[in-house]
């Protein structure tokens, strides 16, 4: 009897040791630090705890061209780090088979503080957002089924999913969560503006004057620290007769939302030309001309623009100086977010 008990105990200990040896190593947590003075993030980190392994998987997915139908386009193709993750110098980005997108690629930054995505806010969760460009016929045009099949067939991915999630299951949810982990850490909070606010730097005269004008004329829709109020507004951009993009109304079906688009963040604005939801403004000068002269006032135009936005040439000059302080050169060179093996700086991507 006693012998049986001892043998049984020994077997149990052995089993525990074996299972401990076979158990996958626990992923290493990454702490998400909120820049000082910033609001609480909108993203629910409890549902997707950040880990080094999850981040690494997200990065591999972000730069993997196999997420497109003909294996030619990755997320990073249209979201280039040196351009604050917009498409450098493109009003509209390129999809497969020489197609064009219908909207200007937005900067990817500070996404943890955003709860609706796309220029029309149609997507309600960061995890879901990548599914739109991946499946859109004029963008990456791939089916979720095919993507999961391509990933499952890749040994490197099998190992990475195991490391990130503790088991080897590969599904849409885990792809979305890993991509979110990578994008959530894209925090831009190290511009000259931020350093000035932290007391580590100071504005020169034009920057200082520009900051004053900004606070008076721009900050109601572009408030710090995110430089967007995350609302949908009609800033007087008339309907493009080819794209016929009604913006927020496409989602809500409400005529009151016609021609309203997400207020973009102005962080890294010097790097994200062209401007506007469809990239119609070639340079910042065009944006200012629009605001002071060309704005088309319609029934849904933001009431703040009833008199357009009067700006003198002098004010525009100072505003430009201030807006340049929102460029975060640490963020756009941060190797954590760089395409593996890619050269820093503009690259030729096919034309």
């Amino acid at each position: 009897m006693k012998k049986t008990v001892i043998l049984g105990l020994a077997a149990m200990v052995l089993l525990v040791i074996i299972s401990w040896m076979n158990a996958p190593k626990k992923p290493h947590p990454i702490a998400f630090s909120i820049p000082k003075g910033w609001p609480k993030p909108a993203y629910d980190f409890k549902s997707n705890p950040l880990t080094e392994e999850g981040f690494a998987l997200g990065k591999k997915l972000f730069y993997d061209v196999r997420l497109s139908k003909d294996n030619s386009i990755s997320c990073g193709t249209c979201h280039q780090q040196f351009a604050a993750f917009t498409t450098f110098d493109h009003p509209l980005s390129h999809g497969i088979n020489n197609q064009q997108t219908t909207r200007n690629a937005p900067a990817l930054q500070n996404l943890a503080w955003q709860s609706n995505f796309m220029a029309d806010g149609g997507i309600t969760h960061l995890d879901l957002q990548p599914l739109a460009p991946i499946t859109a016929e004029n963008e990456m045009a791939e089916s979720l089924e095919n993507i999961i099949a391509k990933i499952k067939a890749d040994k490197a991915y099998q190992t990475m999913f195991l490391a990130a999630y503790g088991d080897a299951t590969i599904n849409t949810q885990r792809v979305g969560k890993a991509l979110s982990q990578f994008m959530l850490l894209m925090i831009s909070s190290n511009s000259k503006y931020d350093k000035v606010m932290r007391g580590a730097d100071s504005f020169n005269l034009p920057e200082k004057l520009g900051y004053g004008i900004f606070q008076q004329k721009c900050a109601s829709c572009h408030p710090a620290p995110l430089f967007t109020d995350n609302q949908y507004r009609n800033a007087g951009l008339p309907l493009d007769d080819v794209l016929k993009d009604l913006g927020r109304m496409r989602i809500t079906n409400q005529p009151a939302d016609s021609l309203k688009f997400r207020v973009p963040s102005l962080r890294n604005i010097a790097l994200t030309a062209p401007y506007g939801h469809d990239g119609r403004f070639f340079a910042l000068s065009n944006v200012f001309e629009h605001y002071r002269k060309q704005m088309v006032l319609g029934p849904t135009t933001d009431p703040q623009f009833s008199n357009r936005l009067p700006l003198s040439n002098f004010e525009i000059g100072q505003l430009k100086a201030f807006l340049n302080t929102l460029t975060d050169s640490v963020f756009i060179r941060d190797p954590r977010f760089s395409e593996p093996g890619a050269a820093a700086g503009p690259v030729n991507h096919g034309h």
Partner: protein
Amino acid sequence: MKHLLQYILLLCLGLSACSEVQAQKSISFQHFVGNQPLVLEDSIKNGNAEILVVRRFKYYVSNLVLIDAQGNRQSLPDTYYLINEAEPNSKKIILPNSNKNYSAIEFVLGVDSARNCSGIQTGVLDPMQGMFWTWNTGYVFAKLEGSSPSSSLPAHAFTYHIGGFRTGENVLKTIRLEIPGSSLPNDLQVKVDINAWFSGNSSLLIAERPVCHSPGNLAMKIAANYAQMFSIIQP
């Protein structure tokens, strides 16, 4: 020691034998067009005398509740079912073992707003199932696709993708079906008549509206129609 093991073994056997006595009950969804069983790719005529061929017919059933004669409600665990005409196994929902009797069943046709708003789901709710709008977050609750000579679209196609969970465009429908004789049969047969899509509260002519691809007024009209498509087949 030996005796103890034998005793446990006997107990296990006994328990499994007991559970076999309880009948495994289920609900089966049978798809029809009027009184004709639905056959995918077969030409049929709907209640509006429009000829059509159905290629896809799928819908979500969730929040299943069994209700007894006293009105006590037994909610089934948080489970979602994607009923798909093309997958016979999907058309049968296995109920948890119970000796109780029930007089009605209730379920939601669609996916509640919580699941629409909490990121990517798994299993039958995986967006990979093709029942999800990626550009305007939300599930397609019910999908009916095919072709009809009445349709003016390329290939005479018609596609109805019905969904919407937001206020003002909500098409979540709670369906309640009374069980005849208040006695739940081993396999409750639920008739699902596609005709209801076209001729419920308001008539839907394929010739006039061959497409519905987003939440809104048309989706609400069609959902009000198809909420009437369920009935129980008398055993």
